């Protein structure tokens, strides 16, 4: 099962992940840092969105672990 990992110490709150998949990502109200709502992509489409989010994230805070 692939898992989305988020390193909040790198996150800069750009919100690009939320734009990519609002069902999988959110930002905390205070510091704008990433919250992974759905760490395990449920299907191929969700996995593809997670890959895109990791590619687009400006601070390289997101990664996928098999």
């Amino acid at each position, binding site marked *: 099962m692939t898992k989305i990992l988020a390193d909040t110490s790198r996150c*800069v709150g750009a*919100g690009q992940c939320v734009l990519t998949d609002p069902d999988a990502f*959110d930002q905390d109200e205070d510091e704008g840092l990433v919250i992974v709502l759905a760490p395990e992509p449920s299907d191929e489409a969700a996995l593809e969105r997670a890959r895109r989010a990791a590619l687009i994230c400006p601070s390289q805070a997101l990664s996928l672990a098999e």
Partner: protein
Amino acid sequence: MTAPQLQTTRSCPFAPPPEHVQLRDLEAPTKVTMPDGQEAWAVARLEDVRALLTDPRFSSDRSRPGFPVLVKQRPKPGMFRPVLLTMDPPEHGPARRAVVGEFTVRRMEALRPRIQQIVDEHIDALLAGPAPADLVQALSLPVPSLVICEMLGVPYADHDFFQNCSTQMLRRTTPPEQRAKAADEIRSYLRDLLAQKRAHPADDLLTRQLPRYDDPEDLVGLAFLLLIAGHETTANMISLGVVTLLDHPDQLAALLAHPALTPAAVEELLRYFTIAEFATSRVAKEDVELGGALIKAGDGVVTLGNAANRDPAAFARGDEFDVERGARHHIAFGFGPHQCLGQNLARLELQIVFDTLFRRIPSLRLAAGVDDLPFKDDASIYGIYELPVTWSAP
């Protein structure tokens, strides 16, 4: 041999200068001569720009001697104190976290009804006035300006004053003394405003930031950055977007038929123009190998962002404008820890404007030829000074 002069103006309003494309298509980054005579490495491949902007060995500190500038006369170092945009780690992270919560996707989405109302009111006023009219003054500038003023808690009644100052500051041809004077005027205005907020707290971003700052002067710097970055950039994108969509009637028709396309169209416009392409320039703190070039400590690196955003290695048919592309891996908002703080505000404003304007005024058209429009060839941020438009009575 001296390095070739960097071309700093776009010959075609819709494309990077051909010289930038040539530089991008070389084997490796190469040196160019900046307008002040100093040399810098030109970086123009998307991959290299992304590597540059995520490498902590490069600094954002504009007061370092090697930092590339676009003006003929370098500003004196130490004229300004560090602000978010110019900070490196470890200062940058905490400074960004102190404010980024104000700009989350969710917070921005909550502004939608108010932004829609502002846009509608300005279109009402435009339609009530004579045609042709200048869209820059009627819509492009006032909408983002009002929005950022309300967010920050800056009285909009003073917008003529700071818009004037910011236009002077961003014009590369403004003499250095005058540029410094314009900046000082905004600073002293904001200093007074913050003192008022300390005495009379209000429900706005600047009031909420007050307790986070030990030195009030640091908050003046942030307020200044947000005020200028918050309206000039978006205003230019509104004007450029209107021209481009009117110039591509088939794509405008597709957009009108499928409003769900608007976010993708906004990304495409951001990519296609990359209006703040030099804002992502850096200076090396150590020797670094980047894209096949050895960049020495102290060397400046200038980013040719518009050419990078059309890099064939990253975008198929990158020179074509395609509202359906929907690519968000462009660097129009930069990349790395400094990626634009206001990006989701800008996206929302642009989406609402394009969604509303063409729907409410289907007969909107330019009242001048595209070639006759005054494009901002002499400014740090690309755009249009004046945009005459006309329409038929509905």
